[in-house]
C-alpha cells in the first residue's frame, strides 16, 4: 500500500495502517530529531511525540508534500520548542556571545583545500557528524534546516523565531566553523 493509502486508512482510525507508516519512516524521523538534539533519549521522546501528534493531526495532511516531509516538519518544530526551553535554562556560551557581538568567524582564515577530497562516503559522513557535534545547538540547527532540509532563509527564520539576518549570520558562522573543523579532522588523520 502507498503512503497515501495508509494515511487515508489511518484518518479513519486504522491503527494498523498508522503502525505501518511509523515502521516505514521511524528511522528518518528519529534521525532528524537526533541531528538536532544530539541526545538519544531526547530524540526518542521527541520522535515518539511527533508520531502521536501526527496521528492527531492527520486531517491536516493535504498531500502537498510527501508524508515523511510532513512528519519531519512536526518533529523539527518539537525539537525547536525543546531547544528553546533548553536555552532558557542554560547559561550563554561563549559561542553565542561571539554571535551576538559578531566577528569570530570573519577572522577565520579561508580554507583553501577541499577537506573532503579523497574521502569515501562513509568516512566523510562520520567526519561531518563529528564536526556537527561540536557546534552549538543554534548553529547546528540552522545548518540542518538549510543543508539537510533545504529550507530557505525566510522559512528557517519563521521556524526558529528569529530574523533573517540572524539566520544568515548563524549559517555563515556554522559553515566557516564546519570548514575549519573538517580541515582539522583531515590534518588529524594525516598525523
Amino acid at each position, binding site marked *: 500500500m502507498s503512503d497515501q493509502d495508509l494515511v487515508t486508512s489511518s484518518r479513519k482510525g486504522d*491503527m494498523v495502517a498508522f*503502525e505501518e507508516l*511509523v*515502521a516505514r519512516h*521511524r*528511522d528518518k524521523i*528519529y*534521525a532528524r530529531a*537526533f*541531528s538536532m538534539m544530539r541526545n*538519544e533519549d531526547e530524540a*526518542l521522546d521527541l*520522535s*515518539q511525540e511527533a508520531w*502521536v501528534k501526527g*496521528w*492527531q*493531526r*492527520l*486531517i*491536516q495532511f493535504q498531500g*502537498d*508534500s510527501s508524508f515523511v*516531509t*510532513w512528519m519531519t*516538519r*512536526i518533529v523539527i*518544530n518539537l525539537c525547536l520548542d525543546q531547544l528553546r526551553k533548553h536555552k532558557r535554562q542554560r547559561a550563554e556560551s561563549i559561542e553565542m556571545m561571539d554571535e551576538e557581538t*559578531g*566577528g569570530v568567524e*570573519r577572522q577565520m582564515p*579561508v*580554507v*583553501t583545500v*577541499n*577537506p*573532503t577530497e579523497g574521502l569515501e*562516503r562513509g568516512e*566523510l*559522513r*562520520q567526519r*561531518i*557528524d563529528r564536526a556537527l557535534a561540536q557546534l552549538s545547538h543554534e548553529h547546528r540547527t540552522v*545548518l540542518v534546516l*538549510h*543543508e*539537510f532540509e533545504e529550507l*530557505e*532563509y525566510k522559512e528557517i527564520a*519563521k*521556524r526558529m523565531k528569529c530574523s533573517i539576518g540572524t539566520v*544568515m*549570520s548563524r*549559517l*555563515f558562522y556554522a*559553515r*566557516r566553523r*564546519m*570548514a575549519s573543523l*573538517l580541515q582539522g579532522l583531515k590534518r588529524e588523520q594525516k598525523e
Partner: protein
Amino acid sequence: MNDELTIKIQAWVDGELSGWQARGIAKLVERDAEAKALATELRQTKAALAQNEMTVAVPELREFYWNKIRLQIEREEASGTKRVSPAPWNPLSIFRSIGLPLAGLAVAAAVATVTLNQFSVPGYDEVTATSDEMSTLTFHDQSAGMTVVWLQDNTDQPVQDENSVDSDDVI
C-alpha cells in the same frame, strides 16, 4: 571585505539573491580573489554537507517503539484529547472586508439568503455540487455585474479546533 559583503556572498552562493544584487556579487567574485576564495569555501562546505548526513536508526525494537506511541495515543484520547477535525467552512473567509458586522452571522445556508450591500442571491443561476466532497456558494455582485460560484472542497478546510496546531507547525 566587510561583514555585509561576506553575508551577501553567502546569500549568492545559496541562490537567495536575485536580479542586480546577484549580478553584482557574481562580478565581484569573478574579479576579487578574496571574494572568490570565500565563495569557493562556502560552496565546498555546502557540497560536502549535501547528501552526506549520517544515517541513524531508532535504537529500539519496532514493537517496543510502536507500543509507546500507541499507548500515548490511547492515553491522550482517553483523557479527552481529540483528533483534529475540520471545522465547518466559513464562506465569508474568501471576501475582502465589506464593513459588515460579521459576528453572529451563520455559515453557508444562512449567508446564501442574506442580502448584503453589494450582493444579492440570483434567482436564475443554478449550480449543483456533484461531489459529496464539495459544497457551493453562489452570489452575484451587482456593481461588478459578476456572478461567482465558489466551489469549496470540504476535505480541504482550515482547522479551527482550539487544540489545533498553529498552521506554521506544518507546511
